[in-house]
């Protein structure tokens, strides 16, 4: 016990002294540090972006993945330079903010339905109605007529269905229930949309790994997890019938297609849900994650750094998102974001003079 402590002390003291000395010398450089807080879902790609950006420009961005809810609180309190949320703010939440806040979508994600049906070789096919009924507790066995009809030629087991949902508040849940509400009026009325909802049926697992853990452990279970998580863990995922009527597998391409397909709405308001998109290639359970930024910033130097970073993330940053299993934004949405950035100002002065397109 003594040795590590001593070595820590040995390491800390000079570091502390150095930090103090640097702090005294490099006071103007403090502006080259940005802080953000919020969503956990985009944390892997954000931290990669921050590393790359620091290497390129020397600007350090400190991000705490404390959850969307806490991120929104921090933006409201003005303790961070930007927030991040998996759920777009509602009109009420926007009004609650002290000043106008803009949304900047950064990457898209999809939610896959993972299932555990031992002995079934064909990939499970699901329709919006079946998914809603399972999570409403109306369909409770796998050999239900509706499931059999969607999976012709496949013999479904007579096992009970265990629907699994997230027990913790989560942007993944928000994407999933946004989809359910868009395909089912009863769901919209009785349960609604949010990062956590009052589930009519099923059991909850904490985090993607909690849901996947229950699904893996329980024959007959079905649960929703982030696409990235499902891919990394090679879970069996269901094909979903989309709005155009074709069965689509969750993938990065079908997620980007969902964003592309919702462009008309996104151009008006980037907060528009992209669930149940119309394109035949689009995977229906998809959503975007957002940065939350005050339109009029207080500190011009920091504000400039922030805008430059976001512009970079929209261009060079997008090139690396697929390595981490996020779906890229289509070019058209990047254009929408760039025009949002052009409206940002610091104490009334516009920040983005020459928009790097």
């Amino acid at each position, binding site marked *: 016990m003594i040795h590590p402590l001593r070595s820590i002390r040995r390491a800390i003291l000079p570091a502390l002294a150095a930090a103090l000395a640097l702090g005294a010398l490099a006071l103007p450089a403090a502006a080259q540090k940005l802080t953000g807080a919020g969503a956990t879902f985009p944390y892997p790609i954000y931290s990669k972006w921050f590393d790359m950006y620091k290497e390129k420009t020397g600007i350090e961005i400190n991000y705490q993945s404390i959850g*969307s*809810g*806490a991120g929104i609180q921090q933006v409201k309190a003005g303790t961070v330079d930007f927030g991040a949320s998996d759920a777009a703010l509602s009109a009420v939440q926007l009004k609650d903010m002290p000043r106008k806040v803009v949304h900047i979508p950064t990457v898209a994600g999809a939610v896959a339905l993972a299932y555990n049906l031992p002995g079934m070789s064909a990939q499970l096919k699901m329709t919006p109605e079946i998914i809603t009924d399972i999570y409403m507790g109306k369909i409770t066995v796998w050999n239900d007529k509706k499931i059999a009809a969607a999976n012709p030629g496949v013999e479904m087991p007579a096992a009970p269905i265990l629907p699994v949902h997230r*027990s*913790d508040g989560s*942007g993944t849940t928000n994407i999933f229930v946004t989809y359910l509400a868009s395909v089912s009026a009863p769901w919209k009325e009785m349960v609604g949309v949010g990062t956590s909802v009052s589930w009519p049926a099923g059991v909850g697992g904490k985090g993607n790994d909690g849901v996947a*853990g229950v699904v893996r*452990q329980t024959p007959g279970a079905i649960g929703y997890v982030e696409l990235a998580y499902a891919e990394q863990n090679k879970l069996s995922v269901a094909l979903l019938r989309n709005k155009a009527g074709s069965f689509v597998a969750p993938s990065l391409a079908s997620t980007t297609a969902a964003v592309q397909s919702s462009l008309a709405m996104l151009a008006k308001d980037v907060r528009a849900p992209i669930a149940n998109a119309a394109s035949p290639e689009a995977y229906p359970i998809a959503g975007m994650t957002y940065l939350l930024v005050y339109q009029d910033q207080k500190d011009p130097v920091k504000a400039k750094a922030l805008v430059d970073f976001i512009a970079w993330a929209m261009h060079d940053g997008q090139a690396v998102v697929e390595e981490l299993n996020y779906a890229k934004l289509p070019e058209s949405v990047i254009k929408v974001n760039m025009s949002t950035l052009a409206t940002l100002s610091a104490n009334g002065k516009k920040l983005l003079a020459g928009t790097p397109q």
Partner: protein
Amino acid sequence: MTSAAATLRSAPEPARAETRGRAVGLTADEIYRQLLRALAISVFAVLVLIVFETTRGALPSIQAFGWRFLISTEWDPVAEKFGALPYLYGTLVTSALALLLAIPPCLGAAVYLSELASRRLGAALTFVIELLASIPSIVFGVWGLFVLAPWLRTTIEPFLIAKFGFLPLFRGFPFGIGILNAGLVLAVMVAPTIVSISREILLSTPRSLREAALALGATRAEGIAVTLDAARPGILGAIILALGRALGETMAVTMVIGNTNRISASLLAPGSTMASVIANEFTEATGKLYLAALFEIALVLFAITLVLNAMARLLVYWATGGRRDVAGAA
């Protein structure tokens, strides 16, 4: 009055003059005393601050729901309607189940370790049991989810449903996770507390009691019964401590209980506890009322723990008649 006080004040003067040489020592003593007092008070102040902050955080929810918060079963973050009953229920049922499952074998183990086992074996076994207490709770959670749940699903729960399915307690599907699993995991987690404290208590009962019982012609079992009777308050204290741990356990329970806000009579059904709902939901609690409702749950949990601790103290005090020489009085 004034003159009397003045006399009193002036009275020790000569004595003080005599000990002037030690005045510095006295001041140091005084400083030391004040410092320790400040430290003692600061612990108390932290407690007061926690209660104050939690209550302040809970205020919007207390104002919005009043007492209905404790009896409403609705927990709907979308409609911003919050009631804590499912979580109160889940906390109490899992804790009660844990104690019910843990107490008989743990007391048996404590009696064996203190009365029957050889000194060496007793010490070795106690060490192993106490080691259980140092395992992080997430490990118990993983064990519950990946080892206990499949076993419950394939063996125990189908058996319970087949044999005792006529009771509402054992109805439903055998999914392996739920109240029963949480109760079992908690039982294992509280076992070391009950065993090691009960053993200490039994060891510290006066030897004369046992000898007197044996002298009167009691069998060994009867002798042990006399010892157990003498140790009762201490053992009760151990159980209350175990209950405290069961009530507050968060991570392991969250992983195996199934996390739903429905109240079900069946032990096979999923449920939720107060600690698990806070851990689950606070990071994404975006609404003001939502966060306040979680704060209020924390407050209720805190109150329950406080009441239980006070009860344990009273129980021990009452059972020992305030004497400190009886086993477990401390």
